[in-house]
């Protein structure tokens, strides 16, 4: 194995981000409490530059480096850029929230940057080992972030549950990987893919390995029945962390699925398709139905995540170019929607008041018409009401599924979307038609946050009116 300096170029964003995470960690040691803004600024600069670098080193061709363990292709470019931007948005929303609660610490940003680095490694992984590395880096950072408010009982409990369940899932994933290694003799995706035809197709070891790998993946995505952690973690974690977990890591999880299932185990499509069908159906049903019974908006959005994951799985299980494109479109759109949705929750909360009950949104229109309008756009988009982008995301997925003659599952998806529309539109109803419980004026928020929220909300409409641009990007990234 010979190391060439030039092979560092494709991973320049990751290298840069790693450096910056360390810089934040070190610089923060020398800052006084009122100077924490510097850590924040460094983190934002790191994310934006990483996004810029990703675009700069990106190209239409595929580069495989580090002895086939790392890959850089158009898909990784698009996903990494989106991850960086969405994370930057999450940091921006979180700034005031953290400051209000004395959580405005450098560690938050260091952990956040490491989590982003973990996601980027997952996206660029070309072997089971790399992917596991990225996954653990992400997970460990997130465990710590969930417990970031260490005085909060709910936060610690959530972190504990997340950690234990995450450890089980990791164990299963590793176990699955080892079985696949045993069956095919490799952990590099292309070699695994080449090795499968040489094995007996009914090889139990291979299929068992596949099951374990899919379970590890489903845990990360939060698909039923491996979703149990989602509501508790979303609920218990500080809202800023919930927002972070709910948005960017979904992109990484999508990459995880694409790399492992499509690149590595594509030959077993018929097998994993069945598993994904089961999990997607369960996710759509469970997520949408249970969300109706929630009174806490963070929990409600947690169940909504589960149902959206069902849709993403639908796109992947179609197993066609169109299906992958639709799933990618859906994931990107979802991460932006989730960012905005939690962003509103953050902006309405203040010290000692989390704004996480549905009642807190009563009469929001009277208190702030603009927030209410943005929230309405986001909720309509999540529900899939045209002309918001959420409609097209669902449409493309359903189209892809119908094209592979799985009409019943598309109908199932539509059916549960209708049920799901209820709780999204209930929020709109609460905001516009109910009398406010609390007439206190809203806490003032910075101009940067307001601009971001406006861009975020209007992007639902903008992308919905002109969905072709993003769709073309996704399509090109996967071809």
């Amino acid at each position, binding site marked *: 194995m010979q190391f060439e300096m030039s092979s560092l170029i494709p991973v320049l964003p990751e290298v840069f981000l790693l450096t910056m995470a360390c810089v934040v960690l070190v610089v923060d040691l020398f800052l006084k409490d009122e100077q924490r803004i510097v850590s924040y600024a460094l983190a934002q600069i790191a994310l934006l530059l990483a996004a810029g670098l990703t675009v700069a080193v990106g190209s239409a061709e595929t580069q495989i480096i580090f002895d086939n363990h790392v890959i850089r292709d158009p898909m990784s470019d698009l996903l990494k850029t989106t991850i960086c931007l969405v994370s930057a948005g999450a940091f921006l929303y979180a700034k005031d929230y953290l400051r209000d609660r004395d959580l405005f610490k450098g560690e938050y940003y260091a952990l956040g940057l490491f989590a982003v680095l973990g996601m980027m490694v997952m996206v660029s992984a070309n072997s089971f080992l790399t992917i596991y590395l990225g996954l653990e880096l992400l997970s460990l950072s997130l465990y710590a972030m969930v417990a970031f408010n260490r005085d909060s009982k709910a936060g610690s409990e959530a972190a504990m549950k997340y950690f234990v369940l995450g450890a089980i899932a990791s164990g*299963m994933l590793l176990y699955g990987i080892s079985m696949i290694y045993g069956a095919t003799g490799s952990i590099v995706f292309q070699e695994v893919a080449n090795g499968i035809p040489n094995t007996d197709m009914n090889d139990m070891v291979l299929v068992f390995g596949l099951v374990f790998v899919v379970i590890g993946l489903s845990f990360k995505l939060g698909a039923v029945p491996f979703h149990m952690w989602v509501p508790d973690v979303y609920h218990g974690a500080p809202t800023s962390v919930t927002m972070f977990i709910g948005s960017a890591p979904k992109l990484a999880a999508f990459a995880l699925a694409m790399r492992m299932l499509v690149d590595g185990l594509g030959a077993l499509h018929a097998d994993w398709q069945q598993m994904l069908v*089961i999990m997607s159906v369960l996710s759509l049903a469970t997520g949408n139905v249970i969300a*109706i*019974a929630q009174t806490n908006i963070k929990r409600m959005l947690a169940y909504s995540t589960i149902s959206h994951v069902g849709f993403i799985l639908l796109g992947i299980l179609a197993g066609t170019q169109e299906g992958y494109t639709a799933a990618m479109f859906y994931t990107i759109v979802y991460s932006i929607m989730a960012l905005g949705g939690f962003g509103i929750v953050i902006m309405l909360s203040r010290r000692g008041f989390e704004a996480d009950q549905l009642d807190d949104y009563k009469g929001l229109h009277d208190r702030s018409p603009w927030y209410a309008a943005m929230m309405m756009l986001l909720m309509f988009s999540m529900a899939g009401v045209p002309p918001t982008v959420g409609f097209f995301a669902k449409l493309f997925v359903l189209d892809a599924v119908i094209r592979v003659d799985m009409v019943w599952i598309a109908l199932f998806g539509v059916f549960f979307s209708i049920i799901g529309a209820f709780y999204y539109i209930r929020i709109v109803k609460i905001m516009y038609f109910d009398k406010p419980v609390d007439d206190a004026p809203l806490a003032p928020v910075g101009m940067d946050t307001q601009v971001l929220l406006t861009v975020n909300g209007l992007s639902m409409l903008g992308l919905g009116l002109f969905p072709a641009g993003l769709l073309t990007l996704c399509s090109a990234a996967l071809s």
Partner: protein
Amino acid sequence: MENIYLLIVLSPLVGAIIAGFWGGQIGRVGAHWVTSAGVGIAAVLSLFVLYGFISGDNQVFNGSVYTWMVSDGLKMEVGFLVDHLTAVMISVVSFVSFCIHIYTIGYMADDEHNWPQESLAGKNSYQRFFSYISLFTFSMLMLVMSNNFLQLFFGWEAVGLVSYLLIGFWSVRPTAILANMKAFLVNRVGDFGFILGIAAVVMYTNSLDYAEVFKAVPGLADTQIQIFGDTNWSLMSVIGILLFVGAMGKSAQVPLHVWLPDSMEGPTPISALIHAATMVTAGVFMVARMSPIYELSETALSFILVIGATTAMFTGLIGIVQNDIKRVVAYSTLSQLGYMMVALGASAYAAGIFHLMTHAFFKALLFLAAGSVIIGMHHKQDIRDMGGIRKYMPKTYWTALLGSLALIGFPGFSGFFSKDAIIEAVHHSTIAGSDYAYAMVLAGVFVTALYSFRMFFLVFHGEGPRDEHAREHLHESPKVVTIPLVLLAIPSVCIGYFTVDAMLFGDWFAGALHVLPQHDTLGELGKSVHGANSMLGHVFLSPPFYLAMAGLFVAWFIYMKQPSLAEKIKGLFAPIYTLLDKKYFFDEIYQAVFAGGSRGIGSFFWNKGDRKLIDEIIINGSANNVGRFAGLVRNIQTGYLFHYAFAMILGLLFLLTWFVIF
């Protein structure tokens, strides 16, 4: 030329938009200037186009200006077909509309009195009215200039919509609301047939373009289709009759005529606009434009002939017993529309369009004269309260006299040429129903003269208004009202004489209207009559003249000479009087059968279907069940870590067994 055509259509639209959206800003004067200017431009350019065709400089234009969409080879476009027929139509429409715009300035001058105080709708109502009538003109121009069925349908519906807005313009009056709803609903019935007809055209020719459709239809002449069961229907008859059902709605033919008399609830200028130049003539125009289709189906032609003849005769009879000045004119419109339809049914399309044109002028004139009288009488409309108005309103009197003479077809007036041509064309027609139609239109001449001059004598002659107060205030209307009267009186009198040669016996419509040799009733007529002078020469040899004179005389005798006779006749023929007074009970039957029936069906579906089945069982039932289920399953989320881990293991076991078994 394309730009000119665009300008003709768009200038009224621009006026309507400005007056409609910025009526408050530009004020009343601004509104009537901008809309009148828009329609004025359209009128001048239309006349210029018409002149171009007369002088032979203009070529027939057929082209699209905008492609809306192409779906499966079916082009949906906005396009213009401007030929001799269109040129006549746009000139008539825009000229009459222009006169009405000017007239409206006077008529609506104190419209605020028509609204209750504090009424929001009463604010800027003057501007809104101008916006509507300009929009109406735009819609009608789009309709007549169209070169495809889609745009025709657009214009058709737009005319229907704006007529709805205009008839119910005084939206605080319950009668007006009822009338505009009635107009809208009855038109929907017609439009349903119309769109089915268009659908049939598209289905068999896969095109919306007139030229392509007309090229394709001769090949489909013998096509038989099956609609219900195994009965064979001629495709052309089906298309023709379906399209004509649309025309029956718009052009108010029996039995879809009921909306038109009620539309008198709108302000008089729009009554004139609807009845003279726009809307009701749309059906006549459409049938003429579709002549290549109708020529292929004698069944459809006979259908038109019979419906038209029935309308011409029987609605005229109702006119005799009406006492509201505007309603008399309204029934006269119905009757005259019947004449136009008869002409179309007899394949004398040119005569139909010719009558449409002459009628547009003299009917607009009569309406505006009636409006002028109504202004003078302070918005009283009962002719029994009038009388002797001649002394007070000389200009109105003389113009109304000219209009009435034109209407009854007095020799030399424009109505004479058009009506005589229709009667003679029907006489030459040989298709089924033509004998019936001939009898009806002949009798109609007598009836027309009777009701026209009954109204004329009761309004203008005899003793002065009974009401002292009304008499004191009675005076001639302002110039904005009388000038349009004079402007319209001129063509009412003489346009027939000057154009009959070209339009009926010349080759003016050669490229626009298609008549098969065996249907060519006008050609037949042309063998014995050679033009205007020759028609005048035949006056004393033809029955219509004597019938008209008889009607005039009877009207004079009953209502002037022996007023007591009217009451006696009424007593003598009480059942017939009631029948006419109740308009053959059409309204009552419709109210009971259709309105009552559909309300019954509606409330059945509402109670049993919507409330019981859908709301209670399906919607609320499923919502309740989902809610209950959600409440149950949320208990699965216990919060205990070992339960969660257990769920994961269960999931793992399930997936593994799945693969072991399958």
